[in-house]
Structure formats: structure tokens, C-alpha cells
């Protein structure tokens, strides 16, 4: 019998609350919309304020990626000031953001993503009992050490930047702190401890052994090599995901965007895998790699409750004029649709590793396309790339005679952008200053890319696309929806919307 059902599902553990509206047609998702359910209005707070105030206000957009917001904010001001940022300041900025990223990747995996493996939907899964043992909230054997180790690694941010969350230690021209040798030694110890835990518990092997895994055969070889690999968090995640067939879930657009992560200091012993970045910028479009050019970013408002100015505009040209929902019956979102060269694009750790041409990720992508399994796998293995770079940069910090801050001209007029890779992907701040005040402040968050509504061509945003076509095995427990959305590591406090009546109207606030 043909059955069609429309459901609204609140989705917690999405760093802020989110509701998914989806239609199930004969057991398959035929349409989907995502609606964040809260609006805070940060953009308005910034207009008319002193230029440096963005360094205090934008980190408070998000309690888990505040250092990322700070870095995007400061890079926009660096550009306006024409600042030359000393190497040691670049290192401190990178190191603190990397520490926050380690925290994010592990907390997302074991506090936000894998608790779904304890859902009653998996009662028949052969690893269900062990999943409950590992992932039970606040009690699981993977959860408790994750809480303990992640709070230690962010001590690096407190040593170099005062506190976490919500510090403002990055300023145009560098950082305010002047870490001494002992501060750096403390950071190195924290890093060594974290690495030890990551190797022993998360990978089950050394970083060196893991770096040999480049093909699908390598992965199987690694998994079956020894019990330590199978029993590690990575090994268990792979085994559980295979039986649950997560690689068949959450297929989306084959487009990925990265703004480039962790710019290299001028003088460093670390080899840059690509021009000036640890993870290169780029746009991967249906199998082809393209160089990244921020001029090609536009915001489309066809399905958003904003006045259209005709063609989609670049963020510097974009103004936000609200249109009441009934004026435009097609619109269903307060979110604008970011597009690159006209295309929607997924962003996040998977996008970073695809654009960095990581051999294992590329082969998995070639085999199955983008999916829940490789999104989460990319997040879980990303620390393996950060840890050696952090070690190198910590050793180099404070060794030369350079300062951590270079004084600049007063910030009066001009415009600049700060584009970084935050933990969830591409984050951009576009700032315009007039007469020493903030005139315009546009933020496009990673979740804005991933949770984008349709554009004027009717093309869905990445996670809308990833949901459509999903087979729901048990309508009582639609874990497939939860996995798909959570695999994007949604951050709804960054990207928040509002509901009016029963129509989802979504507003990207930041």
C-alpha cells in the first residue's frame, strides 16, 4: 500500500537545536527541509561598533568553535590594517585553533555522533551491546576519556590565550600574549599526552602505522592486523559502520569546498603539502579540482525570506533586507544559499581531505560517493594530520627574536575578509569599516553551506540533497536521518533560524 507521511523531528546533539521536516514516501525520504529553531541576531550587534569589538562578539556566536570565529574575525582586520603578522603569532593562532579542533573532532564523534549507535533501531546489530558500553552518554567507555582528554588539550588555548571558551587574544598584527619558554614546555607536554591517548585508544596504533593506510586494501589489512586495531575506537567505528552500512547513507552533491587551513609561517621546518597551507584551499567539482577564488562566492536568496537584488551577490555586495514570509510564497528559509561558481558545496573535514587529495579518502569517495561513513571517518582521522604539525610549531615558537605582535595603523576605513577552515568547514567573515566603525559584517558559516536551502535553479543544499532518497528502515526510529545530519556536524547556534506557525522559516544569523 502506498503511504506518504510528513514528519517533524527535533534533533538535539547538533550544537543547538534543529528540526528536520521530511516526507516519507513508501519508506523513502522524498523531500526534506531543515529548520533551525532559534534566532539570536548577532549581525545587528556588530554594526556601528568599534572595529576590534568583532574580536569579542563573534567568538560568542558559538561555544564550541569560538577560536575559529576569532581567527576569521582577526584575519579580516589584518587585511584592512595591511598587517604583517609575525611568524610566532601565526604559530600561536594556528596552535590554539588546532587544539580547539582536536577537541571538536573527538567530542563530536563520541558525544554527539556515536550515541546514535545506542538507538533501539540497532538492537539486532551484532555490536549493539558493545556500542552501548562505549557510547552511553556520560558513562560510556569512549565517552569518559573523551571528556577527560579534550578538556586537557584545550588547556593549550588557556596557556596561550587566557581561557577557553571565549577569549579574544588574537588582534590585528598578531596575538596579545607573549608566551615564555615554560609556557611552551607545558603546551608540549599536553600535546604529547593527547597524542599518546589518541594513538593508544583512538587509532590503536602509532601515527606512523596509520599513515601507511592509503588504499581500501590497506584499510582491511590494518583492521585485521591485530586485535588492538579492531578494538580501538577507530576500528570499532569501522566495524559497526560496515554492518550498519553507513557508506550507503547520506549521499550528497559531489562538490566540496575548502578555504584552506593553517597558513604556514614564513620560516618553518614543516613542509607545506601545498602552497602555503597545511590543508590547501580548493573547489572540488564532480571529480575535478579547481583553484579557489573567493570572488566566486555568492549568496542566493530565491528561497529565502530576503529581498532579491536580481542576480546572486558576493558577500561584500550583499545586503540583508527582510521580506515577510507571505510576500514570497516560494521562500521557506531565512538562510541564504551560499554558492561557489553557482554550485552548492559540502564543507568540513571530508572536503578538506578530498581537496588535500588524501589517498584513502579519495579512494573511498571514488567507490561510494560522499556518505555518512567517510564524513565521520574523515573527522576521526583528521587529528592524525594535526598532531605532528602542532609538535613542530610548538618547538619553533619563541625560539627566534621575533615578537608576537606588530603595531599597525588605526583601523578607520576599508574592507577585508577572513577566510579559514573552522572545524565544520569553510568559515568567512566579510567586514566593511567606515569612519572607524563597523558598517557591514557578513558571516558565512560552514553550516550555512551544508544546511543551505535551494537556489534559483532549484538545486538543493548539501544536506537536503543527502537526505532525499534515504531508505528509512524503522519509521519509529529513523536513525538514518539522524546519522546523515549529524555526519555534517551541524552547528545550529552558528546558523540559526526561526519557525513561524508551522512553516519553517530559517534565518542564518551569522
Amino acid at each position: 500500500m502506498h503511504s506518504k507521511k510528513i514528519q517533524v523531528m527535533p534533533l538535539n546533539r547538533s550544537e543547538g537545536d534543529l528540526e528536520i521536516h521530511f516526507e516519507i514516501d513508501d519508506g523513502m525520504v522524498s523531500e526534506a527541509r531543515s529548520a533551525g529553531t532559534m534566532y539570536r541576531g548577532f549581525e545587528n550587534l556588530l554594526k556601528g561598533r568599534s572595529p576590534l569589538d568583532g574580536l569579542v562578539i563573534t567568538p560568542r556566536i558559538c561555544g564550541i568553535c569560538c577560536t575559529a570565529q576569532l581567527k576569521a574575525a582577526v584575519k579580516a582586520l589584518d587585511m584592512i590594517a595591511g598587517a604583517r603578522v609575525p611568524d610566532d603569532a601565526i604559530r600561536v593562532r594556528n596552535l590554539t585553533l588546532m587544539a580547539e579542533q582536536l577537541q571538536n573532532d573527538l567530542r563530536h564523534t563520541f558525544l554527539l555522533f556515536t550515541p546514535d549507535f545506542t538507538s533501539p533501531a540497532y538492537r539486532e546489530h551484532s555490536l549493539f551491546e558493545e556500542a552501548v558500553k562505549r557510547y552511553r552518554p556520560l558513562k560510556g567507555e569512549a565517552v569518559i576519556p573523551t571528556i577527560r582528554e579534550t578538556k586537557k588539550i584545550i588547556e593549550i588555548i588557556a596557556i596561550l590565550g587566557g581561557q577557553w571558551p571565549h577569549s579574544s587574544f588574537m588582534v590585528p598584527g598578531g596575538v596579545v600574549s607573549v608566551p615564555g619558554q615554560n609556557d611552551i614546555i607545558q603546551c608540549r607536554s599536553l600535546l604529547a599526552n593527547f597524542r599518546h591517548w589518541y594513538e593508544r585508544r583512538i587509532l590503536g596504533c602509532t601515527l606512523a602505522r596509520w599513515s601507511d593506510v592509503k588504499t581500501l586494501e590497506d584499510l582491511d589489512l590494518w583492521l585485521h592486523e591485530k586485535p588492538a586495531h579492531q578494538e580501538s575506537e577507530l576500528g570499532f567505528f569501522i566495524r559497526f559502520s560496515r554492518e550498519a552500512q553507513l557508506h550507503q547513507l547520506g549521499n550528497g552533491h559531489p562538490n566540496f569546498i575548502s578555504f584552506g587551513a593553517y597558513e604556514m609561517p614564513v620560516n618553518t621546518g614543516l613542509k607545506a603539502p601545498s602552497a602555503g597551507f597545511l590543508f590547501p584551499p580548493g573547489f572540488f567539482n564532480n571529480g575535478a579540482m579547481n583553484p579557489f577564488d573567493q570572488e566566486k562566492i555568492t549568496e542566493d536568496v530565491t528561497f529565502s525570506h530576503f529581498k532579491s537584488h536580481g542576480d546572486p551577490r558576493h558577500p561584500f555586495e550583499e545586503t540583508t533586507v527582510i521580506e515577510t514570509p507571505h510576500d514570497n510564497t516560494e521562500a521557506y528559509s531565512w538562510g541564504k544559499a551560499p554558492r561557489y561558481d553557482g554550485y552548492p558545496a559540502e564543507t568540513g573535514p571530508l572536503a578538506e581531505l578530498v581537496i588535500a587529495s588524501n589517498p584513502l579518502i579519495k579512494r573511498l569517495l571514488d567507490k561510494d560517493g560522499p556518505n555518512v561513513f567517510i564524513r565521520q571517518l574523515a573527522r576521526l582521522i583528521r587529528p592524525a594530520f594535526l598532531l605532528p604539525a602542532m609538535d613542530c610549531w610548538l618547538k619553533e615558537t619563541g625560539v627566534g627574536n621575533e615578537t608576537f605582535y606588530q603595531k599597525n595603523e588605526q583601523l578607520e576605513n576599508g574592507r577585508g575578509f577572513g577566510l579559514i577552515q573552522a572545524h565544520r568547514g569553510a568559515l568567512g567573515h566579510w567586514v566593511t569599516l567606515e569612519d572607524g566603525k563597523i558598517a557591514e559584517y557578513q558571516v558565512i558559516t560552514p553550516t550555512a553551506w551544508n544546511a543551505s536551502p535551494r537556489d534559483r535553479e532549484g538545486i538543493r543544499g548539501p544536506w537536503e540533497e543527502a537526505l532525499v532518497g534515504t531508505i528509512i528502515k524503522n519509521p519509529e526510529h529513523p536513525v538514518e536521518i539522524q546519522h546523515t545530519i549529524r555526519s555534517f556536524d551541524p552547528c545550529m547556534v552558528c546558523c540559526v533560524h526561526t519557525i513561524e506557525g508551522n512553516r519553517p522559516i530559517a534565518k542564518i544569523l551569522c
Partner: protein
Amino acid sequence: MSTTLYWIQGGGCGGDTWSFLSAESPDLTELFDILSIEMLWHPSLSALDPQSKEQLDRRILEDEIPLDILCVEGSIIQGPSGTGLADTLLGRPKKDLIGALAEKAFHVIAVGTCASFGGFGTDQETEATGMQFHKHDLGGFLGKKYKSKSGFPVINLPGCPCHSDVLAGTLSALANDLPLELNETNSPLDWYRIMVHQGCTRNEYHEYRVEEKQFGEKGCLFFYMGCQGPLVKGPCNKILWNRRSSKTRVGVPCFGCTRPDFPPRHPFFKTRNIEGIPIELPAGVSRAHYMAYKGMAAAAAPKRLIKRKSGI
């Protein structure tokens, strides 16, 4: 008997939750074990499916499950135009659920500045307010007369974010039925009677008026850089952040995030002053005395400080 705890988020960034995860000795999970706290719901940590969550809410509201401690994070969003629709749960204003839970709770804790006083969004279309204060004024969302079942008003734990030790200590006191002395904004005196300035490693610079005028100079941030450490209450330099440091210690000014009127309109990185004397002086200090004292102190400043050799 376990103590039940329900955590709800209004207009916030989640920072108080992530800050709470930094609790140490005991850490979060140990603390809940020691205090026999049963966490009924936390939006970032719970794995209840949506149906069970709805059932939980219903059972609490119908008095089938006792609610011992309600933690509220984030502001109460009342806008636009009083509808509360800028923050909803299943189409209904979240504030309605927060209000209904507050009627059932034995204790209510406002975690962070937004939940305490409104914080971000108080002057905007979101019409944000605090649980029982709107900035400096008693009232807020629940009104002046509100008392939880314990007879306490909403206990405010301001800070952006709230420090994990402050929340852990407050939970411990409540779970053990220990008396909790509150200040004029209903915050526990244990953490909100001292100034942020106390314990700052740059105190000696302040003492002799060795000023920082440019980032990274290692001086006192109070005179030019906008530091509010001597003006606001908070334990940042007593219990430190992440067990390591504080903003003022590394050279970031205190932005006064525990203040009921945070965030202020004036620039964060600039001290409003008249001829080098800040308009806002350390709490309770007379201008004439302060000017005389600082003038003499600056003259008495030792060279080792002026040369910034103290290594802070």
C-alpha cells in the same frame, strides 16, 4: 535518592555547556556520581529519542517525575513582538516550556550571563531577557516574586561563559542542602564577592600604575586597554580558567562579562578616561583619593617594573 537535573538551552551559544565539560577534580562524570545526580536531559549530551523526550517533559509537568534542579543556559527569547517565536520547540515558544519547568523545579540555576541577565539580544528584535533579571533590574522572565519550590529565587551564575568550578560548586551545595549565600544579583557570594582583578598576576603593574598602551607590552590593562578587572566581580583570577591562566594574565583585557549589562555599547579594547584617569574607577574608590594615590604610586614605580622584567 538521586537528584534529578534537567538542562535547557534558550538563546545561547552552548559555551556554558562546553565550559562545564572542563570541570576537574571531580570532573563532570565523577561529580554526577558523587552527588548522585541523574541527568534527565541535556540537549548536547542526551541520547533520548524525540518521543521519549516528549514523554519526559509531560511526566515532569504532570508531577510524575520530580525535578530537583533546572539549569537554564542562554537568554529567554521573547521576540519578535512578544511571541517568543524566535526560539521554538516543535512550533511552540521555548520560553513556555522553560516557564512551566521553572514552576516544577525545586531549584533553578541560570547558567551564564545570558540566562542570568539577558546578555546578547536584550536590545534587539529577539527581546532577550534573563530568567529573573533584565540587566540590573529584578524581574526578567519569571518576575520579581518568583521563587522556586525551595524558596530560593533563580540562582544566577553569570560569566560568558560561566566557570565550570562555579557551577560544580553550586550544584554540590544544592545537592547537599548546604546554605548558599547570595549577593544583590542573586549570585553565590563564594564566587561573586571578589573582583576579577584580585589574583591577577599584573596586580603589581596596577599598583605602581605601569600602564599597557599597546598589545603585548605586559603592563596593567586597566588604564588604556579597556580592562574591567577592578570593576566587576568574578573568580577568574582566583580559580583560573582551564586550570591554567586567565585573560588578564595573558594580556587580554577583562570585558566585564559577569556584569548585568554585558555586552556594553562602548568599545571593548578602550578605557574611557579623562586625561589618563579612567571614568569608571575601581569599585568603591573615591576619585580624589584614587588620583592622589596613583600619582604617587607612578612616581614610586621601581625600575624593574618599568623595564618590564617581571616575566608576566
